[in-house]
């Protein structure tokens, strides 16, 4: 019995395992070491260099929050590193966690990974109760707080944003294809996903050359699955994705869009996808609130005023949102906690939404942003659109392998989209991929 054996030699084995993990991760550590050895500059004059390691676009730097924190806390310097693709970020974070070194003082955690942190790695992150985090509980939406709480009640991260969903679109391209551009009118036309796809066919018939209806069927699937309460696991932690009718509906619609040739066949987070924002390769992109900042970054100044935001077809949903955590191996834990407490406070979340579009998870901030409008997106009332979505969004069941399963399904959908693979074959590929991932 492996269990009996394990019990007998646990300590030895753990030591060997740690040694091995260090050996296996040596190369990566060498690459990461440079980013986090701010320690050498510490001490002189009482200064502290806090390192923050994030993915995608949290937008703190862009919104000027670091600069302000440094001003409020003389002697504190904040250094941020950033990986565009969350999957790459998570990979390197896991390697560093296993080696117990090379970690930043603050690490960002995507909501799709938070179950892995609370269920498998609660011993590698600081329990923020140590610093008095439980007093912050009432500041946050209950579901957001609960998801980062471990079995023993330990608080493993503070919520940053959430991802209420909407649909972003290019008014200039809509005009060229003879479609209405008014956001309330569009919301009515695409009240259902079938309406959205039908409008897509209309667009395709008269669209400008080299312009598709949507960026990728992968992002269509992601936004649709975000409207579901149960996706890959049920509340008891059982894998249900294969028989989940809601998942199947999202799959079928995405397949339909692919077969109708409505997508620009791009791969999310790839360089080509990034280029396509400015080139006008697609007219609509399903957008959780945090995507607004990403669009601004990729489409740049030339895109200003060309974009707009409307309510999402098929009701409210949530895609993504993140946490800030402090690893056990961080150098300045207390200072790191002070920083994330400040960054996730309602005032800062409000400002972050107004500047970057990341929707607040702090309850106090949600009311404050209700009137926010975004000039970049043709003055769309984003506070109201995303606020309504956030209020109606389901509280999702999270599982350890959510992200990896989603990746396999997205890959299979891309096969239908780009290689013309039959949906049946693609579905069985997705099954094989998921088995390979979890196995």
């Amino acid at each position, binding site marked *: 019995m*492996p269990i009996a*054996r*394990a019990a007998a030699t*646990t300590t030895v*084995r*753990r030591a060997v*395992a*740690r*040694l*091995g*993990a260090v*050996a*296996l991760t*040596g190369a990566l550590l060498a690459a990461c070491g440079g980013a986090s050895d701010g320690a050498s500059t510490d001490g002189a004059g009482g200064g502290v260099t806090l390192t923050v390691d994030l993915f995608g676009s949290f937008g703190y730097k862009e919104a000027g929050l670091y600069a302000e924190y440094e001003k409020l806390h003389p002697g504190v310097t904040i250094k941020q590193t950033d990986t565009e*693709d969350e*999957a*790459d970020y998570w*990979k390197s974070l*896991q*390697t560093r*966690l*296993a080696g117990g070194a090379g970690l930043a003082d603050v690490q960002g955690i995507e909501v799709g990974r938070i179950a*892995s942190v609370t269920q*498998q*790695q609660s011993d590698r992150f600081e329990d923020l109760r140590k610093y008095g985090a439980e007093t912050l509980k009432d500041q946050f939406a209950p579901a957001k707080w609960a998801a980062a709480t471990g079995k023993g009640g330990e608080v493993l991260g503070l919520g940053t944003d959430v991802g209420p969903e909407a649909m972003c679109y290019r008014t200039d391209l809509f005009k060229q294809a003879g479609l209405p551009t008014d956001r309330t009118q569009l919301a009515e036309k695409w009240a259902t996903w079938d309406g959205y796809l039908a409008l897509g066919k209309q667009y395709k018939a008269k669209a400008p050359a*080299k312009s598709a209806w949507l960026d990728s069927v992968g992002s269509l699937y992601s936004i649709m699955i975000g409207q579901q309460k149960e996706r890959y696991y049920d509340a008891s932690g059982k894998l249900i994705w294969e028989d989940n009718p809601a998942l199947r509906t999202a799959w079928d619609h995405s397949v339909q869009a692919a077969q109708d040739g409505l997508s620009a*066949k791009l*791969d999310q*987070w*790839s*360089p*080509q996808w990034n*280029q*396509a924002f400015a*080139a006008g*390769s697609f007219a609509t992109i399903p957008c959780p609130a945090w995507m607004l900042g990403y669009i601004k970054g990729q489409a740049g100044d030339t895109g200003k005023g060309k974009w707009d935001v409307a309510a999402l077809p098929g009701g409210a949903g949530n895609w993504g949102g993140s946490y800030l955590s402090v690893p056990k191996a961080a150098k300045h834990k207390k200072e790191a906690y002070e920083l994330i407490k400040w960054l996730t406070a309602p005032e800062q979340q409000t400002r972050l939404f107004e500047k970057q579009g990341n929707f607040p998870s702090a309850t106090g901030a949600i009311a404050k942003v209700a009137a926010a409008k975004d000039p970049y997106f043709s003055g769309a009332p984003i506070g109201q659109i995303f606020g309504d979505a956030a209020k109606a969004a389901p509280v999702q069941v999270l599982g350890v392998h959510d992200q*990896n399963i989603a990746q396999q399904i997205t*890959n*299979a959908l*891309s*096969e239908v989209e*780009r*290689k013309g*693979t039959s949906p049946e074959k693609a579905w069985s*590929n997705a099954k*094989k991929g998921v088995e*390979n*991932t*979890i*196995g």
Partner: protein
Amino acid sequence: MTLTASESPAPPLPAPPPARRGAARRAWRTVSPYAYLAPFFTLFAAFGLFPLIYTAFVSLYRVELQTPGDMEWRGLGNYTALLADEYFWLSLRNTFTIGVLSTVPQLVMALGLAHLLNYRMRGRTFLRTAVLLPYATSVAAATLVFAQLFGRDFGLINYALGLVGIDPVDWQNGTVASQIAVSTVVIWRWTGYNALIYLAGMQSIPDELYEAAAMDGASRWRQFFHVTLPGLRPTILFTVIVSTIGATQLFGEPLLLEGSISGGISHQYQTLGLYMYEQGWGFFHLGRAAAIAWVMFLLIVVLVGLNALIARRRSRKEAGR
């Protein structure tokens, strides 16, 4: 007899310092090579041998990166699972096809280049240095540039193809197309390197052979086939072995082509190295990744052995001639 016997220990006594110094020197002479080699072997033991053995150990367990403390004994389970693993066979096949697609043109082109560089001509040194430049470029930089060139919508290569009326090729999603794209980066980086090695080999071929061949009326082309190629045989064997090892371990180019650890949406250009990385650092199955690493290691040993065997048989045949 007894006298001599009692006398025999005497000699060391009267010949004190020089002999002792001589002994020390002799001892140092035998020991010193080991001492000089020790740093290398210490480092090798720490960073070569230990990981190798530890990887073998890990490959017998079920270990997940997120919970490295819980190791579950699987015996050869990780290896037998590979035999039934479709993705493993696919990546093995991809490694082979990409290996052939990149190694063969690379070595042929390198031979030709070396032959040209061996001529007396203006700016020879500059040209010889220039062919090595791609090798000095980092894989990451080179691959990222090529990924742009091979872009489906905005890539220069598809643009050029469009000028002559060829439809855009999906360089990332097509099986053959994506493998050609990966091979192109490999060929670009390594051709110059191999060319310089061939050039060095060519220069060790005595001029008299060429002169004699020329006197016999052999053309440049025949000289290449009958003098250069036979003279280069050991060099060619070396480059074949190095390229085989390189091709079996191919990793950076396919990883960076579109930043996908699965080698494309349907694993169409996933190599063994990439599959190992996906299992280990994508899915965190360290045990399975370790098993793949060992299979790769054994594969390289077998391939190199095969190369050496063929070479030895050929040279024996030649000697017998």
